[in-house]
């Protein structure tokens, strides 16, 4: 039988094997003793695109309607705002009465201009009221983001696009209509924009200007509480959708929750596959919850707090009220930042964005979780 060898002979091969370590040592010895490189381009870019937080100055406030204002946010801690895709949102930290509230707002400005982000807020709850009444030009805010997936993809989406907005849901679409990426990659876009009356149509002038300059852009306004000859009247219903035509179109929805349900149902009836329908993030508040009082114990990294909570408020709301820190970003149970482990207690929660394995180990998103008993959760808050 002939000798099994790779090189000259088996003996040399074995010697070579034995010397592998020495060979490695020799190569290392030839290395550089200079201090090591610590800057890497991909990591630098990752930090630029996803900063831990951005300090911004409110450089301009514009009153859009009676109850809506736009805030122009200029970077203080960075040279320019991070690049984003039209449809993304930021989370704004607002300190009211020593409580920190975090609220997501879609960016309504163009992704082509990164000298500022614009967010547009309608007065609704505690935080938006504060923003409209108290925040002034020159104020400084901290924001997180940009985040989100309510964006146009030329790979996934159709070339003909239908944007359906209700009320302040117009904000992400304002960014779409000013995005050169979006406008370049589509053949046509139709914006169906519903509001109660003409005065509640935010950005009407801006939208009309864009539509008049770009033949790809068509707009139809629909007023639900004002009958006028120059506007469509009613809600965005089956008849109007049929009239617009839905064949081979990607449909983006942004507006109040009832609108999602109504239009989603209608689109289902019209046999539009899920692939063609995308909606802005939202959550549904469960019905029939009472104001029963319980206690919430939060095991943080280095301390444990016990605070009151109640059945018809999310755990995050209770934590905000108690002036506790939270990790919340999106507030609607999707982004995963506030992921917490439910150690004990009964809850009502939406787990549609909880990983399969996390479900088995009782992980929850407290921003969409309502207590039905005393509750103990664990979350890595400092």
């Amino acid at each position, binding site marked *: 039988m002939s000798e*099994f060898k790779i090189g000259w002979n088996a003996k040399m091969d074995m010697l070579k094997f034995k010397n592998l370590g020495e060979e490695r040592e020799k190569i290392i010895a030839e290395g550089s003793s200079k201090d090591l490189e610590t800057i890497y381009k991909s990591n630098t870019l990752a930090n630029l695109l996803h900063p831990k937080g951005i300090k911004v100055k409110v450089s301009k406030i514009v009153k859009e309607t009676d109850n809506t204002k736009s805030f122009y946010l200029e970077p203080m801690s960075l040279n320019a705002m991070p690049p984003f895709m039209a449809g993304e949102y930021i989370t704004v930290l607002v300190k009211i009465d020593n409580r920190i509230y975090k609220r997501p707002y879609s960016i309504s400005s163009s992704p082509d201009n990164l000298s500022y982000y614009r967010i547009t807020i309608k007065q609704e709850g505690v935080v938006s009221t504060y923003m409209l009444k108290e925040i002034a030009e020159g104020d400084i805010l901290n924001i997180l983001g940009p985040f989100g997936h309510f964006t146009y993809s030329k790979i996934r989406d159709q070339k003909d696009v239908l944007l359906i907005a209700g009320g302040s849901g117009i904000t992400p679409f304002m960014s779409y209509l000013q995005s050169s990426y979006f406008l370049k990659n589509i053949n046509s876009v139709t914006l169906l924009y519903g509001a109660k009356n003409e005065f509640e149509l935010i950005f009407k002038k801006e939208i009309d200007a864009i539509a008049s300059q770009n033949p790809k852009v068509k707009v139809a306004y629909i007023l639900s509480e004002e009958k006028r000859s120059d506007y469509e009247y009613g809600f965005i219903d089956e008849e109007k959708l049929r009239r617009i035509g839905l064949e081979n179109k990607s449909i983006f929805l942004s507006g109040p929750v009832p609108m999602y349900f109504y239009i989603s149902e209608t689109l289902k009836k019209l046999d539009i596959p899920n692939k063609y329908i995308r909606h802005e993030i939202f959550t549904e508040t469960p019905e029939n919850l009472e104001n029963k009082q319980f206690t919430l114990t939060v095991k943080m990294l280095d301390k444990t707090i016990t605070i009151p909570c109640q059945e018809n408020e999310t755990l995050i709301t209770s934590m905000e009220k108690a002036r506790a820190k939270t990790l919340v970003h999106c507030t609607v149970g999707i982004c995963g930042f506030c992921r917490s482990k439910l150690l004990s207690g009964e809850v009502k929660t939406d787990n549609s964005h909880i990983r399969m394995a996390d479900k088995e180990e009782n992980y929850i998103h407290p921003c969409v979780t309502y207590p039905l008993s005393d509750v103990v959760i664990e979350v890595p808050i400092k």
Partner: protein
Amino acid sequence: MHREFDAIVIGAGNGGLVAALTLQKQGKKVLLLEKGRVPGGFATSFIRGRFEFEASLHELCEYGTAENKGEVYELFENLGIAQKIHAKVVPETFAVYALKTNEFYEMPMGEEAFIAKMEEYVPGSKESMQTFFSLCREVKEALKYLNETKGHPETEVLMSKYPRFMVVAPYSLLTVLKKIGMPKKAIQILSTYWTYLGSPASKLSFCHYASMIYSYITKGPVTLENRSHEVSLTLSEEFASLGGVVKYLTGVKEILVENGEVTGVITQDNQKFLTKHIIANISPNEVYGKMIEKENVPVKAKKLVSQRTLGAQGVCVYLGLNKTKEQLGLSKYAYFVYETLDSDVEFKRMHSLYNGNLAATITDNGEDSSILCLTSLLFGNAFSREVTKENYFAIKEQLAEDLITSFEKATHVSLRDAIEEIEIATPVTFARYGGHPEGTIYGYLASGSDNLLPRVMNEEKEVYIKGLRFCGGFSSRLLGYSSTYINGRDEAMKTIGDMKNE
């Protein structure tokens, strides 16, 4: 007073999680620090719409089944987590396309079937394939022995039991396969998995590849039904339930070193913890470059890092499709698409963007949809060289376009009309979540003296700071799920050995 631990593990990736749990099970007081919010590092998952995407696992090898257990299965049993893992055996090895040469091969599971199929594709390959498999067995046994003797084998044992291992050990995959007379085409088909280890046949150690492909073909790799996050989560929960301390969102800023010995760590939020033993599940580049005071970084450590090449950068395109595999006409689990089957030619091509080479996996998602993941590797900083803040989104999308087109071209299956969700991960994404230099997903390139055996043989000599060991993809067993899990255990056991020697 600062809290003191028997050991601190930095990073809750595969290696770090197993290391922490192994130490904890040995009764040690362990602190596991993780800068992210979830365990696993790249071993995780994410949700878009109705799809939960696996972030990185293609196939877990060395697992097998309860009847035919692999090393990772046994490891999980010993750690007490095996019963919680939902694994599913992949029924075939791979299907591979070469676009330029218009070739297609599909290989079955099992040694005999594999050899027979190869003989069908490449007549005359049978004998060399049989030699290959018998070498694989010997290599596997020898590596096990080498591991048991912690890199200090007895020459007589090696000579008598594993002589052929010693002969092939210093050589590359290509050199050995040529020498055993394997026809060129068979070498190319057999090398298909080279992208799983991120190094071409002329650079990659024969032993490393042989040991991997042998377990793929004979044991059957598995996929994880609840994604790799299930393993990550189960490991971390088990660790915590045994009294281990895990701190998420707690990165390490500094490793404290005095007189050449580890004394503790300082976290990003300035907490100090004392210990004499650290297992770092992060890159030596970061540890020696950023985490240790300059005067305490041994010159040898700097030299070592300076001589190594970062491994592949990755691009992943995750597609949620609104059709099942059957509706699409895709019957396999793993597909490889290359321009040619010559790994060295392809390795060169993959030093530039938009090369179209990819490894794909596809699984059904319920009864009416499926998940397709396309992964592509880039070498020599091909990505970082080109990308800027301004062109990032465009490059990202073009990379995805390129991979989808390449897959469609190879399989003649149209994906476009079925894409319901798409997510694209680039080296920037991996840098964001993993933090490794240039967002590499493969540790250091396996090549020459930085291959498996020299790494294992010199590991003890490269403990330049007493009490500081590395685990995970940058460590001695290199990248990959099975390697990093097993390496986590090994580094923990070595640390326990260090403790005994005190």
